[in-house]
Each structure stands twice: as C-alpha cells, then as structure tokens.
C-alpha cells in the first residue's frame, strides 16, 4: 500500500502547509486571500487526520469522517465568508481589511 513512506513525512508536509497558511493569514490584506490562507490551514489539518487514520488506526474510520465534516464546515464557511465579502465590497468599494474598518452603516 504505502510502504516506504514513514508517517512523519506526511506530518511534516502538513506542518509546512499549515505554517504557510499562517504566514499568508498574517501578511495578506485582501479578504479573499485571507480566506485562501484559511483554506490552506484546514486542508493541512485534513492531511494529518487521514495519515493518522491510515497508519495508526487502519481498522477504524474516525479520521476519515472527521475530515469529511471538516470539508463540509470549510465549504459552508467559504460560502458565508464570500457573501460577507461581496456585501463589504458593495458598501465600501474595497475588500482591503485596512480600508474597511467601520462597522457602522
């Protein structure tokens, strides 16, 4: 199946991806790119769940179902976030987080 690839490789890959997402989350100023960084973070956590499930508990399915629910939550989060972003753009004509700082309407 996946002989020759230690579990640690998957975990290190997911770690690098996670902290790349954190870096993007901290530096970006555009709301859509911040959303993309969050998607990267969620995706890296999914890789961890799947690798743990396959390597340590291959007779169970917890990791797979948890990833499934994470994907569903990410999808609904993206839908709501994009609705909010479009609304912000309609009100302020920008989606830069430093320009749209007023909640007043």
């Amino acid at each position: 199946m996946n002989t020759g690839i230690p579990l640690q490789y998957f975990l290190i890959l997911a770690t690098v991806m996670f902290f790349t997402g954190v870096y993007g989350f901290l530096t970006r100023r555009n709301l859509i790119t911040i959303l993309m960084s969050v998607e990267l973070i969620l995706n890296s956590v999914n890789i961890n769940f799947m690798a743990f499930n396959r390597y340590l508990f291959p007779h169970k399915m917890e990791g797979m179902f948890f990833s499934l629910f994470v994907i569903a939550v990410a999808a609904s989060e993206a839908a709501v976030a994009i609705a909010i972003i479009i609304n912000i753009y309609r009100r302020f004509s920008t989606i830069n987080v430093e320009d749209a700082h007023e909640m007043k309407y």
Partner: protein
Amino acid sequence: MVSNQIMFILFAAMIIVFSVLTVTSRKILRAAVYLLFVLVSTSGLYFMLNYQFLAGVQLTLYAGGIVVLIIFSVLLTSHISQKFEPYGWKKTAFSALAAIAGAILSIITILDYNFEATTVAAKEMNMREIGLSLLSVDYNGYVLPFEVISILLLAAMIASIVVAKKGGPKRIDLPTSNKE
C-alpha cells in the same frame, strides 16, 4: 514501492511550492489558481492513502466548488490586472519569523515522538461501509454529526443568500475616495 515514493515526493513538492506561491503571489487570480493546484495534489495524496471516497469529495467540493466560488468573487471584486503593493519588510519579517519558528518547533516534536505503526489488518472502506456507518446509531455510528452538519449546511446556505441579497443602505464613501 519505489514508484510510491516518487509519487509522494511529487505531490509533496507540488503542495509545498504551490502553497508558498498562493500566499506570496501578488496577483490575486494567480493565487486562486495556485490554491487549486494545492487542493488537487492533496486529493492525490488521499488516493495514495487509499481513501478513494474522500479524494473524490476533495476534488468535487474543494477543487470544484470552493475554488470556483473564490474565483467568482475575485472577478466580482477586483481588477484582473491589479497587483498588490509589496508589504512592509517589518510585517513580512515578523510573520515569516513566527511561521518558521512554529514550523521548526512542530517538526522537532514530530521527529521526537515515536509513532508505532499498528499491525492490525486494514478495514476495507467501500461506499457501503461508509454509508452504513454514516447513518448508524450504534457505538461507531455517525448519525448525530451527520444531522448536525446537514443543519449547518442549510443554515449557511440561507445565511449566505440573506447576507448577499441586494438592497439595504447605500454604500459609504471612504475618506480616501472623498479626498480625490
């Protein structure tokens, strides 16, 4: 076995390179396309781990749904040729420091810990097994989270329609646009 490792290295390199490009690219549409590559390579990893169902879900939902949604909103809210200004070196340096420090700490912890692979025979995961345990109320059943996630999806759908609906107060002009 060797082909397995080659595939893993290929997917891992694609994931790392394209995720770095996603967070550093200065054109927003390109960042979205790089994100698509990252998600497709992740689904390749799931195929390697023998989770065909989840790889399919990843392809259809993430690569097919969320990326298209993101690209749509990019087209609605920004100009294609618009480039971000480079960030200040202070912000970049401190964010990179935080990310690299966290990554090094986590990698040291991972390499330190002794994971013991089990010798238990792998359970076969076909669609029938997945569907049965998703709707079962037994000890290993997942009917409660399944119901909760369905209500969450319905709520998110209605909420995004209500929030993005046209109407409401007029737009506010920013102070910067007033000056011009």
